[in-house]
């Protein structure tokens, strides 16, 4: 029993990390039609910035502010980089540009910090005992903040006028602008938001395990998959899909008969299988509705 709970708890931590990536990808895609895959590298870079500041000052607040600053910088950089493709409706080029930008950042990190894994906190992490399971402090923060942030974002998207603007921009940019909304500003804002959410994940990973220049990649891929499986226009679907994709494999790995010898290295294989099944079963996203096309 406690084994089950413990696995669940651990998987929730990693799941939440993916979740924030999926949500950021969703937001950015919603306003700019771009899959901003560079988010992985951006998050990593932000985490390294936090790491540097923490080494020199040792203060969480200062480091967090510094990281926040960089998140905003990257938000605007992304905007400056990708806006043109949005304007020209060059989806593919935008994707490729984002991809290259990600590689660019990763190499930059490699040059500045070199590639060996960096732990922000040296030594063994303190764990909080919840009785049935134990979690590290960063783990708890990840789950807590992660879920909270997701709830806030989902609320804003689904229930507020901002959310309606956000959803309509993708539908018809010209129309929204004609309603007096500065859609360019909305986009730049969403880019920043995305960078902040993922940056938070990056820092948390640095605190919870370790930083490597390439750590963002698998997160962004899984987030990307969750985004599409959940349904690109449906944030609830994205959230559910994320947890399905990050929890089910863990249990397959830990509860399959040992004769099958499934282990952590099989994870992405199972992610694919599950994505496959979900897509076959719900081709247009988990909670898809059919809409009138003219």
């Amino acid at each position, binding site marked *: 029993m406690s084994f089950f709970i413990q696995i669940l708890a651990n998987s929730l931590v990693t799941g939440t990390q993916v979740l924030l990536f999926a949500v950021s990808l969703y937001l950015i895609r919603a306003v700019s039609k771009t899959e901003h895959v560079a988010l992985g590298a951006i998050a990593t870079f932000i985490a390294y910035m936090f790491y540097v500041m923490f080494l020199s000052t040792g203060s969480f607040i200062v480091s967090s502010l510094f990281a926040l600053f960089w998140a905003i910088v990257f938000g605007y950089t992304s905007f400056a980089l990708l806006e043109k493709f949005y304007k020209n409706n060059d989806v593919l080029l935008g994707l490729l540009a984002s991809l290259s930008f990600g590689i660019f950042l990763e190499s930059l990190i490699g040059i500045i910090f070199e590639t*060996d894994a960096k732990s922000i906190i040296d030594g063994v*992490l303190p764990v909080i005992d919840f009785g049935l399971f134990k979690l590290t402090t960063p783990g708890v923060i990840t789950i807590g903040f992660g879920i909270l942030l997701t709830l806030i974002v989902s609320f804003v998207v689904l229930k507020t006028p901002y959310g309606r603007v956000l959803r309509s921009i993708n539908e018809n940019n010209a129309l929204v602008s004609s309603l007096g909304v500065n859609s360019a500003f909305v986009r730049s804002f969403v880019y920043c938001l995305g960078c902040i959410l993922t940056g938070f994940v990056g820092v948390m*990973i640095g605190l919870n395990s370790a930083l490597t220049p390439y750590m963002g990649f698998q997160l962004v891929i899984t987030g990307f998959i969750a985004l599409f499986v959940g349904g690109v226009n449906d944030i609830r679907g994205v959230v559910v899909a994320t947890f399905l994709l990050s929890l089910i494999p863990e249990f397959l790995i*830990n509860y399959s008969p040992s004769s099958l010898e499934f282990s952590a290295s099989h994870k992405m294989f199972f992610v694919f299988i599950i994505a496959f099944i979900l897509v076959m079963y719900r081709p247009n996203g988990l909670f898809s509705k059919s809409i009138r096309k003219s």
Partner: protein
Amino acid sequence: MRKYLVLALSSLVVMGCGSSMVEGDGVLKVGVIAPLSGNAAQYGEETQRILAATLADINANGGYKGSDVELIFEDGKCSGSDAVTAFQKLVDIDGVDAIIPFCSSESLAIAPLTESVQMLAVSATSSNPEIEGASPYLFSFSYSDAVIGESMSKELSKFDKVAIISEQNDYSIGLKNTVEETLGEKVVVSETFEATNTDFRNSIEKLANSGADAIFLNPFPGPNATNLAKQMSEDLSKFEGVQFVSQIAYLPADSREGISELTEGMIIVDSPVLESEEATVFSNNVKTNFGEVSALDGYYTLALSDALTNLVNAANKTSDNSIAMQEYLVSSPLVGWLAEGSSFGDKNFVPGIEAAVFKITDGEAIIQK
């Protein structure tokens, strides 16, 4: 579009210039193929530091027949196809006289080429048993995984239930395979994680839940090893009365910093570290003057140094000609920290390296009888 054309042409020109170098010019050039980008880049960086340190010593002592030895690096990314292109660039453009490949994948990929162009390749780190007999021009100063694997199995066979956690790299997997083959049913759980993974908590949970009385920690040395141990130490109560067994990963003293509680009493199976003064001095010299070495600390630092030293030695004894050097290596006794006295003969792995068993007592790795 013109842009492309200009670039394409200019590139060809550049290559043309490159190829104007000639071989056998009394200068000894050694090419190094190591991962300098991608996930394994750290090993490349550390390789570069260790070799730089060795090179400094060599050139200080006269280099190759009085002239300085040159090192030329290429990025092999631990991937076969990149290694092959790198190999050809080093041979055709830079006109190197010998090559030091890093990953087993790089060594195995260039093996056929070394034979066809008769280019000597000496690795210090490739431990994939496949290398035995791959090419008469390919040697490794690492021990074959089989060597450590056997004694490791012997140690583990003392227990009834064994759990294994391995990193997904050729060194660890090679070791894991040998152990699993010999132990068979005794292995209750064999967990494998990707080299890029940094959160091992679920795997750790699985180990703790397996009810094994011995756990074989089998990551690659360096950050992953430290991380794994750190995350296991978060709740050691799960591992009451479990015997930890491991390989080179936790042998260097500073790899055990902060996790002494876990490593205390750990059994480590690995080739004997040199107790010699000079060896320690050399290793420390690398770290202090050339940069951090964590993944390749200990045995591999010395093995890499040996690889280069022996190449230069062979060249000094004969000439900077691959074939001559190869003939020297197979026929004559080797020099260096680890290989001193032994000789390759008809083997591709440096012979005579057998495993020793250590036990961590009071933070010190003590050799067992």
